[in-house]
C-alpha cells in the first residue's frame, strides 16, 4: 500500500479504542451541514432571480425556492437527530487503515483525471492501470505491461476507429496522426 501517513494527524479521542478513525457522528453532522449550506445557497439564488409571482406566472426561482427550504429542514432534522438521538451514529465511520485504502484509490483517480487533460485519455489510462496493478496487486512487469497496453489500445480501436467517438487525445496520438 502507499506509504502516506497523512491521515494520522487527525488525532481523535478514541485513541485507546482498537479501531481508530473518524466517528460516524462527525461525518453525519458534517454531511448534513453541507446539504444545509447547499439548501441556503439554493434559497438565496432563488430569491435573487425572484421566487414570487410575476405578471405572467411563477418566476424562475419559484420552484427551487421551496426545494431549498425543504432541503434545509431535512438537513436540520438530520443534525438534530444525530445530536440528540445519537445511538445510530456512535460507531466509527471509517478506520484510518480503511481510509488510507480508500485514498489510495481516490488520489490516483484524481491524478488520472488531471493527467487526461495533458496527455490524453489513452496514455493516462495505460499509466493508471499499470500503476494501480503495481501498487495494489504487486504484479510483475511482465503481467502489468500487456494488460495496461491492451486495454487502451482496445479502447482506441473501439472509440476512434469503430464508433468514431473522439476521446481526449494528447501528444502521442498527434504523433501517429490522430
Amino acid at each position, binding site marked *: 500500500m502507499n506509504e502516506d501517513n497523512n491521515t494520522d494527524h487527525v488525532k481523535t479521542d478514541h485513541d485507546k479504542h482498537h479501531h481508530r478513525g473518524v466517528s460516524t457522528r462527525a461525518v453525519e453532522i458534517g454531511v448534513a451541514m453541507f446539504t444545509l449550506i447547499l439548501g441556503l445557497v*439554493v434559497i438565496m439564488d*432563488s430569491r435573487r432571480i425572484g421566487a414570487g409571482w410575476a405578471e405572467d*406566472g411563477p418566476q424562475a426561482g419559484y420552484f*427551487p425556492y421551496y426545494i431549498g427550504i425543504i*432541503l434545509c429542514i431535512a438537513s436540520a432534522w438530520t443534525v438534530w*437527530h444525530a445530536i440528540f438521538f445519537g445511538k445510530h451514529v456512535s460507531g466509527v465511520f471509517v478506520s484510518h487503515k480503511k481510509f488510507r485504502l480508500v485514498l489510495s484509490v481516490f488520489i490516483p*483517480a484524481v491524478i488520472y483525471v488531471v493527467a487526461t487533460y495533458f496527455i490524453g485519455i489513452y496514455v493516462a489510462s495505460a499509466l493508471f*492501470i499499470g500503476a494501480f496493478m503495481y501498487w495494489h496487486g504487486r504484479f510483475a512487469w511482465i503481467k502489468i505491461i500487456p494488460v495496461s497496453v491492451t486495454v487502451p489500445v482496445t*479502447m482506441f480501436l473501439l472509440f476512434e476507429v469503430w464508433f468514431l467517438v473522439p*476521446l481526449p487525445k494528447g501528444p502521442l496520438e498527434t504523433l501517429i496522426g490522430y
Partner: protein
Amino acid sequence: MEEFSNLMQGFSVALTYQNLMFMFIGILLGVLIGVLPGLGGANGVAILLPLTFTMSPTSAIIMLSCIYWGALFGGAITSILFNIPGEPWSVATTFDGHPMAKAGRAGEALTTAFTSSFVGALIAVIVITFLAPLVAKFSLQFGPPEFFAVQLLTFCSFVGLGKGHPAKTIAAMMLGFALAAVGLDTVTGTLRMTFGTGELLRGFNFLIAVIGLFGIGEILLTMEEGLAFKGVKARINPSVVWQTWKQLPRFWITAIRGTLIGCWMGITPGGATPASFMSYGIAKRFSKDGEKFGTGKMEGVVAPETAAHAAGTSALLPMLTLGIPGSPTAAVLLGGLLIWGLQPGPLLFVEQKDFVWGLIASMYLGNIVGLIIVLTTVPWWAAILRVPFSIIAPIIIVVCAIGAYTVNNAMLDVALMLVFGVVGYLFKKLDYPLAPMVLALVLGDMAESSFRQSMLLSRGEVSIFWSNGLVGSICSLAMLMLFWPLISKLLARLRRGNNDLDEARPVE
C-alpha cells in the same frame, strides 16, 4: 385483444437480425456488468447510453433494456458462487444460494436462481403487456395537476416505503431537484445557480451523477472492504438443469407471491432490493420449513429472485405510461428516451406504437435469450471474477471516465464524476438512499414544469391539487405515504401503550 395484435406487431419489429444481435450483445454486456463490482445496471446503461445516440431508438432501447436484464441475471452468479452480491437486489439470494453452492449444489442453485428470475420477469412482462395500455389510456386525460400529483406520489412513496430515515430520503431527493434546477431555465430564460460559470449553463447531467454515485462510489466502498474473491466452482450440465426444473414446480406459491410483491414494488418505486428482501422474509414466515431458511433451501432462492426480477421489469411500466421511472435504471432509460427525442408518457402508446411494442416484445425475447445465455456461460463469468480486483478496479474507473466524458465531450464532467463518487461513498455509508436522488435529478424539470403549469391554471392556489376526485385522491395518497413513517410510529405506540420514542423507530 388489441394488445395481442400489437404485441405480434412488436415481435415483427424486434425479430430482425440486427435487433437480435443487439439483444445478444446487450445481454452479454449486462451479465458482465452485473458480475463486476462497481458496475451495475444503472451506471452500465448510463455509460453505454452515449454510444446509442446514433442508433435507431428502437434498437437502442432493445440493447439497453437487455443490458438491464443481463445485469439482473448476473447479480445472482456472484451471490451464489462468491457470496458477494454483484447487485444490491441479489443480497437476499446469498442467504440460501451460497450455502447451497458450498454444499456442492452450485449448479442447482444457479439454475434455480436463473429460472426464478425468468419466471418473475416473464409474469411482469405479461402484466406490462396488458396493464400498460390501460394505464396509458387512462392517463391520457391527465392534465398538469394530475401529472404533478403522480410525481408527488412517486417521491412520497420513497419516504413511506423506504427503509432509511425520512429526513435523509427527503434530503437526497431535494438535492436531486436542486441539481436538476441548475442551468438555463427554459421557461423564463433565467440562469439559475450557475454563479457566472459558463460550464454550468448546461446544468448537471444525470448520467454523470449516476456514473459517479454508483460507479466510483461503489469502487471506493469495495476497496475499503479489501476485496478477495473466494469462489465455489460451478458446473452446469443439462441433467442438473433438468433435475432442478423437475423440483421447481413445487414452489409455485412462493414464485407467484414473489412475483406479485415484485410487480407491486416495481410499479410503485419501491425497487427491486426491498422487494427481494420482503419476498424472502414472507416466504420464510409462510414456508413449511421456514426455520431451515439460510441453510441452503431452494425456496430461499426462488423467493428473492422472482421478486427482484419482477420488480426490475415492472419498473418500466410507469416509465413508459406516465414518464415516471420505478427504479434508477429505468430513470436512466427514461433519460435515454428524452435524448432520442421521444416524450415518455401516455402519448407514446399512440404516436410511437412500433417503439413501445417493439420494446415490450424484446422483453419477452430478451429474457428467453438471457436465460439460455446465463445457463450456458456460467463457468466463463465465474472465471472473470477470479481476475484480481487490482486489475478490475482501474479498468472500471477508466470505463467510468470514458462514459462520463462521452456524454457531453467535456472534461469537467469527468471531474464532476469524481465529486459524485465521493458523494456516493459518503451517502451510501450514511444510509442516504441514492435512488430518489437520481429520480429527482431526471424528473426535476418535468416535475417543475407540471407544477408551474398547475400553478398557472390556478393562479397560485395549492387547492388545485384537490380540485377533483382523481387528483385529490392521488395527492391524499401521496400525503399518506409522506407521513407514513410518522403514522406507523403513532400506531405502534398506541398499540403498545409505550412512549419510548426511540424504540419505535426502526433505525437501520
